[in-house]
């Protein structure tokens, strides 16, 4: 699915990723944890292709293709999905229109016929219910006036509608109460199957109580420094990041 090899990347001339390696196979769920500033969000942005994130070295293959040769929109329509930590508000473009365009762009890429307005509406309503957002959210501007939790659920709704093959969730749990956290986790779990892969970027272990990862990686100073199974997350929760070295002493998860 995804193979990251020796990735070095910078933002505004500041080097953030310093030789990251990661392989994600179909159906696997990988959690990436790490202290603030380790480069977790940067990884998501670099993979999705955001402007201003410069790749200095290394390569990434996505479904066997060179990811960095693809435009942002091609990565997305080929199945890479990034759920944002802070989704942007776009007044003037309705959530409905936005999601219909994006679903149909993905369908076009796969060689499927575009969905009609009625067909799409049906799917959108189902997805909306699944993430427990009132249906009127479909008519509102994209994320316009949504609370933090509603934005996160809107991201999960898009994921459900787009049916991507690789989902990267960037702190989709931050700022959520337990109920909302469960909605997000249920949304993710409903999409888990033997083909679809997940990278779950999180600061806290608690999301991983609901979404069981196959692997937990610790990202620090731009590199993956430790890999383990779900129990590693529990260890971090209890002991913090002190094992990473002196400068991380007292940094809790």
């Amino acid at each position, binding site marked *: 699915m995804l193979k990251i090899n020796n990735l070095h990347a910078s933002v505004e001339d500041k080097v953030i990723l310093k030789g990251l390696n990661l392989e994600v196979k179909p159906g696997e769920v990988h959690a990436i944890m790490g202290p603030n500033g380790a480069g977790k969000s940067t990884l998501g942005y670099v993979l*999705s*292709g*955001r*402007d201003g994130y410069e790749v200095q070295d290394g390569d990434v293959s996505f479904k066997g293709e060179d990811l960095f040769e693809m*435009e*942002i*929109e091609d*990565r*997305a*329509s080929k199945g890479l999905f*990034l759920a*944002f930590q802070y*989704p*942007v508000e*776009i007044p*003037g*473009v309705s959530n409905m*229109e*936005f*999601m219909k*365009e*994006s679903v149909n*762009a*993905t369908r076009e*890429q796969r060689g499927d016929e575009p969905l009609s307005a009625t067909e799409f509406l049906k799917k959108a309503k189902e997805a909306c219910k699944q993430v427990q957002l009132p249906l009127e959210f479909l008519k509102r501007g*994209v994320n316009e006036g949504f609370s933090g939790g509603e934005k996160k659920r809107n991201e999960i709704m*898009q994921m459900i509608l*787009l049916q991507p093959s690789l989902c990267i969730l960037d702190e989709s749990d931050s700022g959520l109460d337990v109920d909302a956290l469960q909605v997000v986790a249920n949304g993710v779990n409903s999409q888990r199957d033997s083909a679809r892969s997940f990278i779950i970027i999180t600061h806290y272990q608690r999301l991983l109580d609901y979404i069981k990862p196959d692997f937990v990686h610790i990202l620090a100073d731009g590199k993956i420094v430790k890999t383990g199974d779900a129990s590693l997350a529990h260890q971090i929760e209890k002991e913090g990041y002190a094992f990473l070295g002196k400068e991380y002493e007292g940094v809790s998860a």
Partner: protein
Amino acid sequence: MSQWLTQVIDDAKRVDDFLAPMRQQALSKLQTQGWPHARSEEWRFTPLTSIKERAVESSSVAENAALASNYDLPQIDGLNAIDLVFVDGVLVTDLSDISLPSGLSVQPLSGAPNSAQSKITSLFGHVKPVRHVFGLVNDALCQQGVYIEVDESANIDTPVRIVNLATKDCDAHTRVLVNLGKNSQLKVVEHGSGNVASFTTAFAEYVIGENASLEHYRFALFTGNAKQVGGSHFSLQDSAKLNSTVVSYGSELSRLDVDIIHAGEHANAKMNAIYLLAEGEFFDLHSTIEHTMPNGTTEENARGIIGDRARAVFSGRIHIHRDAQKTLAELNNRNLLLSRRAMINTKPELEIYADDVKCAHGATVAEIEEKALYYLLSRGIKRSKALVMLNFGFIQELVNAIDDESIRTWLLPMLSERFASMEVK
């Protein structure tokens, strides 16, 4: 003085027809005013050098008659209009050959029958303000034009379209005069296009009679080296109604003046303007609304998208005279710049001498929001589509406000394609 203007004045002296007194007036104004000063407020931002030193090149009527069957008429599907076509400034439509609905008459400007001459004389140069140098040139020189009259209470369903095509490097001067009788209705489309080096002046004057209603469109789709300066000028009598939509691209030099004069009470004017300027293009819109009488309303919206190294000028003035009590007037200009090198000079102006009026004006300038664009792209939406979704809404709103369905249907894809092809830098 400019080389071009000197020669134009010389040429104009040889024009001798029933409009001679008006032409004479225009000539003497041209001679005293001369070429606009570089710092003149009216022309400050308009690049006139290419005209100033231009050699006058007129197209002969005979030469153009040959062209009559050899031009591509821009089509608007479903409009089914009466087309009056000027090619390089020469009327190529045989007016004796077109069938008109009852209540509508069309006369040529040159060779107008005696019966029409006095009507033409009383309209020619009476609505268009005299301040405009190229308007004066058109007054003095223009022999190609049409006079359109709608009888009292006639409701003309068939639109009239006046087409100005620039196909070669010459000067083209055309004039349109429209007189709507009391309680009448008409739809007029002024449609200009061309992309070859050329210079067109096209002025139109409208008198909208008491309680009459005009639906007006001006499409100034000149691009490349096709230079054009023109205007649409309206005089609204008591309870007259004007609904005008201006759509413009930009070219080396493109300038439109729209004047709306509330000459009667309770008149209602609505004017929307859209300009989409691709890389390096120039467009200048000057609009002046004169409220001279009470109880008039004006609503004006000008919205534009300006591409890399392109420049737009918007000067919108609403002048409310002392007697124009109870006027409602709104003027708004919104712009989107697609690059750091795109430019807009905007100046909405209110000049109010009456104390019981309600007026508002404003202008905004925005840039592409990178974050929103990235968000849409990251969901697989193609860049061109994403740009249209994010940034075309405010233009689309004005297109959707157009009454005529066939014009809407023609315009929307044409404008969104043009926008999608413009580069964001």
